[in-house]
């Protein structure tokens, strides 16, 4: 238990420091969300309709950005061997890494999502629902990104490979989060169901992904 806490504290610290911690992905999301209207054009109706999807997509991309670092450096500098031979199992380590990633790096996503939703012309309650959807989806996004990161650790152009592997697996979350926002916007009453689905996906990912990550890491070490 103490060891697990020590790992979490350290991973949290390493994830927060260096690249600027949450500032990085936050700025990435902001940049992406600022550029999209430039691309789509300024029509307010189009923008509002596109908002839930665009914001969910920006969060997905942000979650991919740090995935390469999640295990890549640990593999090349020998840290992974250290962990593999430590009292902490690789499965627990994987879950902890994902948790540290969410809480040190990804946490601003729902806040930015809310602000962007308002800026794109969504009403307050819908923006709130969308933001809640992001909160529920973040663990799932991080876990799937982490899984892809573990598979691609130490591989050339791992960033791309990670995007290619993770994005298809994250599609359901994208659909659910965008669904929350769209349902709230159109008042179809399906927002709750989409929220549940996003949460359920995250829980399922929590139950499965750490084992997948651990298996992938063991393979990468050999």
């Amino acid at each position, binding site marked *: 238990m103490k060891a697990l806490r020590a790992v979490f504290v350290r991973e949290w610290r390493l994830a927060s420091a260096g690249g600027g911690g949450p500032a990085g992905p936050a700025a990435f999301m902001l940049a992406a969300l600022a550029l999209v209207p430039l691309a789509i054009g300024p029509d307010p109706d189009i923008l509002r309709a596109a908002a839930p999807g665009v914001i969910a997509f920006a969060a997905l991309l942000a979650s991919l950005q740090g995935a390469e670092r999640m295990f890549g450096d640990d593999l090349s500098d020998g840290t992974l061997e250290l962990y593999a031979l430590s009292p902490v199992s690789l499965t627990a380590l994987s879950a902890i890494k994902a948790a540290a990633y969410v809480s040190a790096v990804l946490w601003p996503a729902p806040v930015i999502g809310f602000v962007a939703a308002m800026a794109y012309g969504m009403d307050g309650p819908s923006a709130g629902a969308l933001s809640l959807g992001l909160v529920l989806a973040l663990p799932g996004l991080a876990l799937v990104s982490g899984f892809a990161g573990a598979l691609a650790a130490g591989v050339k152009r791992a960033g791309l490979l990670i995007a290619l592997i993770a*994005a298809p*697996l994250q599609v359901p979350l994208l659909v659910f989060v965008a669904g929350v926002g769209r349902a709230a916007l159109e008042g179809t009453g399906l927002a709750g169901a989409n929220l549940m689905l996003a949460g359920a996906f995250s829980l399922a990912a929590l139950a499965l992904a750490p084992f997948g990550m651990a298996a992938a890491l063991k393979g990468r070490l050999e």
Partner: protein
Amino acid sequence: MWSAFANPERFERLAARLVPWFGWGAVILFAIGLPWALIISPPDYQQGDTVRIMYVHVPSAWLSMAAYAGLGGASFVYFIWRHNVADLAAQALAPIGAVFAFLTLATGSLWGRPMWGTWWEWDARLTSMLVLFLLYLGYMALRAAIEDERLAARAGAILAMAGLINLPIIKFSVDWWNTLHQPASVIRLDGPTIHASQLWPLLVMALAFTALMTALVFMNVRNMSLARRAEARARRKIEGGEG
């Protein structure tokens, strides 16, 4: 029986014997199925002759999913028991499955133009099929990116198993989300709802595609197995007996 699958050389011989059977089987089935489907079978009362795209579209869709199921299954076998042949099978299935997934997308898209008035529609089934195609690409890219054969096989197996989740999504997406694409009319619990004059040629075409795919997979496996051993031999020659 199992040892025949575990021992590459014996498997190569087995595969060499099976390829012509499936290959000729495919030729014969296509000889029956193609004219039947493309000429003899009646045009649809709604869709006219465009319905003939179905005879390529539907078998490709089935086979791309079947190939992924095979990929996932072979990966599981490799992951647990480390049978090299299972890995070879997985590696052989991936590009073939990807081609069928692409065929499904392409024919569906061609079909969609007259039927729905658009090349592409972002409905659940179409999107999940695209996801399947991307999974194939991801699998191949991952394997290509890892130099060590064994490690590549391990990583690929893990990814392939994770991707299995997408299969039920494709299959049931039309039932779960009420969308544009047509619901299942052949493979369903209460029996097919499609007319017999279309059903039979479709089934023959499906069999022909299956035979073709099986032949291709065996050929692929055999070639890769031979190539792997040839490379090992070349390597030993350069390195000499010792290190």
